């Protein structure tokens, strides 16, 4: 047996995007075991939501949990509050929520691909993808009025309407983006340099993914067909707008990239369907009731299943709010995925997991 070394990565490291600590035990550059440590950025948001803010204000607070999937958090909270109030929201609001969630998914998936290419050492692809991603940010800004914090879903519906010129711009920009996405798909599929770091590294099998309860594109790349959009129909009609399940086979970094790219195609399709068949109705259902009872909501965020639990007590302030972010479910799978890989491919693997620690630690 050769000598073993322990290498710490994080909580501050050049290849990490957010504070996350890994301790790798390596032998001849091969990783034997890994220990992970999260929760460096705890902000006490759940406690603030249950003490300082009224239940209608909480949807703006939970939007600040994460900068990338802000709309997923606000929508999930709005849905759980609507369940507590027994409120049925207008049809147009449902479709607009789906539209913004899918646009958000496009920019989040592209950002993940950007980080994978950068951490694998492919700076030119990093800049190219960043350039192509800008359209989705501008569209979100045009729809929601802000670039990062959308504040689009409110309790009872949505805050803003989709105006006709903006809808035309969305369709036009998506049409222009499609050839660019084909180009990215070609590079991520066939580039030899990128495949050196991507193919076969960070591999996780279907059985392990199932045993460790992995969610999101991470699980789908391993061949596990789980997606909340496929399972629930009561809150947002996903299948009506053309949702398709995308799964990979290999479960490595390459498979995750391809799953994300293919999901962007599905998202584009969904957005086009929504804009073509947007129903006319009110935007908000007004109510003067207070939340009462308990409710649970699941929503597919860009990184996987987002879970919200809320308990009301007929007052303005909620009694309990629990947020379970997708990255929290994935940590066990993330630790497992490193085993047997070279230490040099760690940055690309971490980026391909697409971890969001601010969501996890809240």
């Amino acid at each position, binding site marked *: 047996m050769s000598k073993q070394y322990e290498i710490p990565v994080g909580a501050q490291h050049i290849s990490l995007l957010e504070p996350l600590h890994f301790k790798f035990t390596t032998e001849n550059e091969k990783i034997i075991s890994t220990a992970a440590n999260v929760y460096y950025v705890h902000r006490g948001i759940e406690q603030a939501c249950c003490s300082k*803010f009224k239940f*209608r*204000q909480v949807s*703006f*607070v939970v939007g600040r949990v994460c900068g990338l999937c802000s709309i997923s958090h606000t929508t999930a909270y709005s849905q759980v509050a609507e369940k507590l109030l027994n409120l049925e929201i207008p049809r147009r609001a449902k479709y607009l929520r789906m539209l913004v969630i899918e646009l958000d998914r496009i920019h989040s998936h592209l950002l993940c691909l950007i980080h994978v290419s950068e951490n694998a050492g492919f700076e030119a692809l990093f800049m190219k993808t960043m*350039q192509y991603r*800008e359209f989705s940010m*501008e569209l979100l*800004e*045009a729809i*929601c*009025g*802000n670039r990062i*914090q959308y*504040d689009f879903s*409110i309790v009872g519906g949505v*805050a*803003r309407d989709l*105006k006709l010129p*903006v809808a035309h711009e969305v369709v036009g920009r998506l049409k222009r983006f499609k050839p660019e996405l084909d180009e990215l798909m070609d590079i991520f599929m066939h580039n030899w340099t990128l495949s050196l770091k991507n193919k076969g590294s960070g591999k996780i099998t279907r059985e392990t993914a199932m045993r460790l309860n992995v969610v999101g594109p991470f699980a789908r790349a391993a061949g596990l067909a789980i997606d909340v959009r496929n399972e629930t129909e009561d809150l947002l009609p996903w299948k009506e707008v053309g949702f398709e399940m995308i799964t990979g086979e290999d479960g490595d970094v390459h498979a995750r990239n391809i799953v994300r790219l293919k999901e962007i195609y599905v998202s584009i399709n969904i957005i086009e369907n929504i804009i073509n068949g947007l129903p006319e109705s009110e935007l908000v259902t007004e109510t003067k009731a207070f939340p009462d009872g308990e409710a649970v909501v699941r929503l597919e965020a860009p990184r996987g299943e987002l879970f919200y639990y809320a308990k009301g007590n007929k007052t303005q302030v909620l009694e309990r709010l629990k947020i379970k972010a997708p990255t929290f479910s994935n940590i066990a799978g993330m630790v497992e995925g490193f085993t047997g890989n070279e230490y040099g491919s760690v940055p690309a693997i971490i980026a391909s997991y697409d971890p969001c620690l601010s969501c996890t630690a809240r």
Partner: protein
Amino acid sequence: MNKTNGMKTFLKALGNLVKKPVTVKYPFEQTYIPDDYRGLIEFDESLCIWCRRCEMVCPPGAIVFSQDMEGKHTYHYNRAVCIYCTECVRTCPKEGAIYQTAQPASCALKAENINNGWNALFEEALKSRAAYAAEKKRLAAEKAQAAKKDSALTIKQQGKCTNSP
């Protein structure tokens, strides 16, 4: 890589030399701002009915009303605390009293003391309102007392006093 493909790449690289950059030279050029950008909140004093609903719904507490001893309200707004969620505009019962512009907020400067100064102002505003309410209550009580005394006096003078409360 075959010969034609290499030539194509070379020509593309040459073309990139004369292409305009994708990035925006920010302080000198304006970045993309949509028409209905969520910008600064403006207030129209002549239309306001002083119901203070915008203050109650504001998630970060960026709006506060103070009150002087004559009962006149003053509107205070902090652009650095505001999250531009438009909740105040949505809840306002009088259309046009509070509205959103597409004007982005300017940076907060150290000289403005925007955090501590705002916290102090917020508390002072609440205190001023409490002081006005207490003063009003005192005046009302005094008036009631005076009225009672007055009515008792007149009843006595008329000599029709009954023992019923």
